[in-house]
Every structure is written in structure tokens, then in C-alpha cells.
């Protein structure tokens, strides 16, 4: 596709349920990132993928959060036993590689609301 695609665009879930958020990066981009943005806040890094490997998971807030990437393409962020504080916009970005002078392209995000 032309850009980074995220689905669903909106998700409302009950507290305690599991959710899966999907990211389709730009074709050929080896680096993929997940960020979280709470209302009125900046972006908070969650995890970085290079290919299918995740060299940096340091931003995942708890063991309820996990992510995988398959085929060097699609990535899924899973949140188990959701809590109200997980409510936020989850943003995915991809870049051609992870060099510091490489532009990252962001998706529109998934707005997660835990009720």
C-alpha cells in the first residue's frame, strides 16, 4: 500500500478482555515501531522491530503487552487483560531502515477505549 495501515481505527473493549492491534507497514520497510499516545500527551515508545526481531522491547509497560512481526511485514500488538489506563491511541510507524537520518512514516493509529 501507499502508506502505513492500522486496523481497527477504533476499538472499544471491556476491562479484562484481550485486544489485538494490527499494523501493515510500507512494503520494503525493515524497521517498524509501536508508540502509544495518551490524551494530550506526546508519543511514548513501546517496541521496535528490525525484520521479525524485536531488539528493543524496553517501552512495553507491562507483561500484558506483547508484539510480534511476521514475514518482515505485518505486526500485531496484543494487550491482555486490558485495563482502563491502557486507553490511548496506538501508533505504528515504519522506516526503510533504522538509521538516524531515515524518515519514519506513521499510520493513522488505533484508538483504544477500555470501559
Amino acid at each position, binding site marked *: 500500500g501507499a502508506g*502505513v495501515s492500522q486496523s481497527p481505527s477504533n476499538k472499544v473493549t471491556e476491562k479484562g478482555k484481550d485486544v489485538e492491534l494490527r499494523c501493515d507497514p510500507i512494503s520494503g520497510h525493515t*524497521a517498524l*515501531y509501536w*508508540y502509544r499516545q495518551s490524551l*494530550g*500527551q*506526546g*508519543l*511514548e*515508545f513501546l517496541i*521496535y522491530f528490525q525484520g521479525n526481531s524485536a531488539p*528493543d522491547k524496553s*517501552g512495553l509497560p507491562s507483561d500484558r503487552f506483547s508484539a510480534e512481526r511476521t514475514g518482515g511485514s505485518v505486526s500485531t500488538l496484543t494487550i491482555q487483560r486490558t485495563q482502563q489506563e491502557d486507553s490511548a491511541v496506538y*501508533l505504528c*510507524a515504519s*522506516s526503510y*531502515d*533504522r*538509521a*538516524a*537520518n*531515515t*524518515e*519514519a*512514516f*506513521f*499510520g*493513522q*493509529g488505533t484508538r483504544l477505549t477500555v470501559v
Partner: protein
Amino acid sequence: LAKTTQPISMDSYEGQEVNITCSHNNIATNDYITWYQQFPSQGPRFIIQGYKTKVTNEVASLFIPADRKSSTLSLPRVSLSDTAVYYCLVVPSNSGYALNFGKGTSLLVTP
């Protein structure tokens, strides 16, 4: 990791030039300075990036002094559609990505 400081908000009238300055006192030798723009309900969008001196593209200019401890994003002749949040990032060369975007500068352009 280099910490950035930028104004929380700025106001401007249409047609004016807007300069947003960001300080990053502990920037490392090979770090890059990158600016992103974010509209409501959208993901951030890359605007411009530089290492030193001046960089200009069709959207903005980026001024970086010799000591690289600050940078200034310059938006010429802003329009209402430039109302957005602008993030200044220092991207470490050893990782290639920014860990946190901070709250950015919320720019409001009015007629």
C-alpha cells in the same frame, strides 16, 4: 539520551513567519535533529531533518547553530492549515529512532 525542551504553545496570524526553537543541550556527536508535525486524529508526519547548519525544503527551514545545542524550525507564511503540534526530536545515531516525542509545541494559526 538527549532531552529536548520546546515551548508548549505558540500563536500566530496567517501569513506570518513562525519560528519554534528547541533546546537539546546534551546532544551527542552523531545524533540527528528531526521535526515532525501532527494534526488531530492523525499520526505524526516528518517535516525536516538536519545535522548542522541550515536545511531547507518545500515546507520549512531548519537552523542549527555550530554547537548544535539548539535548533529552530522556521515555517514561512503560515496558513490556518499549519495549526498542529510540532515535535522536536533528537534521534540517536546508535539506535535510529526516538524513544519519546514529548508534548511538542501546539501552534495555533488564526486569521
